[in-house]
């Protein structure tokens, strides 16, 4: 009964989304207030229907209803409750439904928080969201229905992929999807603006908080995914330039560009057309990120099982959404007029540079990710593009980007001189140079030294901006304190986010100095690695809820002092008959000791041991970036924009 209820709710959501795609857009076109008024109600209705459908799926999983195919294939009565719940999005059908639910949540959010929007803009935004929703809901209902029944029901489920039975992965998909899907709102605003035929500062003010929120979630989602790969896959790395990972990086890069160009629209009314294009591009990349990987077109190490019939549907859907919005852009963009004028060396100029570099990085990553597909179609050659390609193209483009990241915020708007700005940053440059030289001499690793210098430049640059704004060391204490308090939160946000990038860069540079070894040890034997002494104490068996595991006890000591005892293990999952290595990591914040237990041979355990300097900084930096974004989002100015516009409109005698 419950699954049928969910199925019905899903079908209802398709119908509501269809209405949401048509009525408000027609209303806005015909200037019919009643039709436009339907938008928020339909958006909320769609959200309720989808939440019901998803709730039914979760319910079926929790009560072990194995007559639901999706539950039978991905769950098991022995699985802990939390994984029964998170398992609902750990597979293709469930994750697509979650994706749709989050999209409906976006529509609901615009309906709930967008009261101050001009009514035609709001109707159009919700209509565009409804259109997108309708397409993907139809896809879910026809090709990937998670509430399908199966007959006869199996006695027990086939269990979830053991790699996914992990707390880190449990929360990775919802956060990542919220980030991906969040960019639907700037996209809908962009398409609505094209339909309306105008973009102004208020539009930029509206788009920015939504972009910021999506960006924060995407940053967090990518970091969670990378962290999961690091401790769960046990390969010792944090980023493998796999198509799935690149697919999440691409919208992040263009989303970061969008975030910055929206500032220019908001403050200076320039770069409007470009910002609209970026908003369309970012959501298109998000769509490709979620679905192109699913369609089985890109070969990836960790994609879900594929079904060719879905691929065609998805491709058609992507073509309609992306192609349609780009066509609309081509037709309508010339209507927009640019207003603000600025010199090449100015805050706007720096943000343009930021956009160019981010888009260049995005382009080279996109090229590397899709080239194998292209090569197979055109030349019939089977090939892959390895990590060295990405490293040798992304790093050179990242260096000028980092240089500009510290410089941009100290440049004034409109027109600036380079020299005074550089003078404000002299001590940041000095620190970066000293750290770079010290690292180069101490480590004999040029790239890592460059990375540390870049990191120092970013963090010191962020501090320099705050010092500059608060007149620290130059004005009397009371003035400094007053200025300190008077800084808007968005200033803090950008400084924190830029510093967070510096922390991540330091972590990546540190990881490039990681050392590792593979050894076969008998209990009692030891090996030296990275200045530590690793001793295998014992090997033993342990019983888990739905697995048995083989555990190694390893003691790590340095100069006779014990530092840690940890327990890498291999888990044999009884239902799926798969083995998963469970990595042991001991961290002190500055370095990770990392051990993986391999197979056993003649009583000796094969171990892979790593010492990863500064590894935790990578994800900590990402967290700091996301916090910076959230600070910026909390800024009051992000909220008071729309009423101001409304007031201005009323004053001008064209109240909506």
């Amino acid at each position, binding site marked *: 009964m419950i699954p049928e209820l969910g199925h019905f709710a899903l079908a209802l959501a398709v119908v509501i989304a269809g209405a949401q795609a048509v009525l408000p857009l027609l209303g806005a076109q015909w200037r019919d207030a009643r039709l436009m008024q339907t938008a928020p109600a339909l958006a909320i209705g769609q959200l309720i229907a989808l939440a019901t459908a998803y709730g039914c799926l979760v319910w079926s999983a929790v009560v072990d209803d194995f007559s639901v195919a999706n539950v039978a294939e991905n769950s098991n009565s022995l699985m802990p409750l939390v994984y029964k719940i998170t398992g609902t999005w750990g597979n293709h059908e469930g994750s697509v439904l979650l994706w749709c639910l989050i999209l409906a949540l976006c529509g609901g959010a615009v309906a709930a928080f967008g009261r101050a929007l001009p009514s035609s803009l709001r109707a159009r935004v919700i209509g565009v969201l409804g259109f997108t929703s309708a397409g993907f809901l139809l896809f879910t209902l026809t090709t990937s229905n998670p509430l399908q029944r199966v007959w006869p029901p199996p006695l027990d489920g086939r269990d979830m*992929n053991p*790699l996914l039975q992990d707390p880190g992965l449990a929360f990775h998909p919802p956060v990542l999807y919220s980030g991906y899907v969040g960019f639907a709102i700037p996209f809908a605003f962009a398409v609505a603006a094209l339909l309306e035929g105008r973009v102004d500062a208020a539009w930029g003010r509206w788009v920015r908080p939504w972009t910021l929120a999506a960006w924060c979630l995407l940053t967090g989602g990518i970091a969670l995914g990378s962290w999961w790969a690091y401790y769960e896959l046990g390969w010792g790395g944090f980023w493998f330039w796999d198509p799935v990972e690149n697919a999440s990086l691409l919208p992040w890069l263009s989303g970061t560009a969008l975030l910055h160009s929206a500032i220019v629209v908001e403050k200076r009314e320039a770069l409007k057309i470009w910002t609209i294009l970026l908003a369309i591009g970012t959501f298109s990349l998000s769509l490709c990120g979620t679905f192109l990987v699913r369609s089985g077109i890109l*070969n990836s*190490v960790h994609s879900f099982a594929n079904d060719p019939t879905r691929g065609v549907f998805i491709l058609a859907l992507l073509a309609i959404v992306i192609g349609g919005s780009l066509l609309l852009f081509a037709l309508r963009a010339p209507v927009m007029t*640019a207003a603000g*004028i*600025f*010199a*090449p060396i100015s805050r706007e*100029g720096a943000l*343009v*540079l930021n956009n*160019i*570099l981010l*888009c*260049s*990085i995005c*382009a*080279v990553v996109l*090229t*590397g990710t899709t*080239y194998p597909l292209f090569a197979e179609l055109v030349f019939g*050659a*089977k*090939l*892959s*593009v*390895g990590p*060295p*390609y990405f490293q*040798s*193209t992304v790093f*050179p*483009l990242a260096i000028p980007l980092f240089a500009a990241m510290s410089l941009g915020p100290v440049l004034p708007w409109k*027109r600036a001189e380079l020299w005074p700005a550089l003078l404000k940053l002299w001590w940041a440059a000095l620190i970066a140079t000293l750290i770079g030289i010290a690292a180069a001499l101490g480590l004999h690793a040029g790239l890592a030294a460059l990375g540390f210098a870049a990191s120092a430049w970013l963090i010191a640059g962020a501090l320099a901006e705050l010092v500059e704004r608060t007149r620290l060391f130059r004005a009397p204490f009371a003035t400094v304190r007053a200025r300190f308090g008077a800084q808007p939160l968005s200033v803090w946000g950008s400084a924190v986010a830029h510093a967070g990038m510096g922390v991540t860069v330091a972590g990546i540079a540190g990881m490039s100095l990681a050392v590792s*070894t*593979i*050894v*076969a040890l008998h209990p009692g034997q030891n*090996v030296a690695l990275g200045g530590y002494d690793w001793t295998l104490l014992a090997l033993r068996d342990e019983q888990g809820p739905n697995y048995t595991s083989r555990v190694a006890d390893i003691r790590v000591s340095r100069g006779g002092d014990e530092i840690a005892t940890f327990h890498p293990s*291999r888990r044999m999952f009884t239902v799926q*008959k*798969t*083995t*998963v*290595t469970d990595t042991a990591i001991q961290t002190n914040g500055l370095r990770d000791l990392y051990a*993986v237990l*391999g*197979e056993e*041979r003649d009583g000796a355990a*094969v171990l*892979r041991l790593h010492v990863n300097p500064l590894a935790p900084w990578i994800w900590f930096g990402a967290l700091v970036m996301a916090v910076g974004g959230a600070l910026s989002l909390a800024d009051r100015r992000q909220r008071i924009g729309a009423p101001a516009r409304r007031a201005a409109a009323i004053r001008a005698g064209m109240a909506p």
Partner: protein
Amino acid sequence: MTRKRRRLWILLACGLGLGSATALALFAFRDNLVFFLAPSDLASKAPTPGRTFRLGGLVEQGSLQRSTDDGRPAAKFRVTDGGASVDVTYVGILPDLFREGQGVVTLGAMQPNGTFRASEVLAKHDETYMPKDVADALKKTGHWNPSAGAPPPAATWNTMQVRKTGG
């Protein structure tokens, strides 16, 4: 600063950014494209020794020998696609799902002595998984006609191979 001059500046900057991105990408492509080859491709288009490529096929039944290299685990096995097979050496931990008679993709380079030295061995975490590239290679050598259904059990590929080479 007139609008025209600003546009010129922006175009110049875009050209510079995209130009350098293109140059970097092309330059990196020259060295970093990793081709996928099946054992029977090696005879016709053998890459130069030392050039990294991916070699995929099935692990020949009965060919796996484990040993120890300087305290580290090592393995020797043969990868076949039914038409030809290649000796592969690997130092490191084989994936959990590495089995004789199953699909495998290895990354490495040919050595002057004609063996393939793998730096990475990939086997997917799924018992029934057949890497897409391997499946295509098997179709090409005529050992699997996809229209006849699912590929036959992987173990039979190797007996065919053994019969062919063994007489």
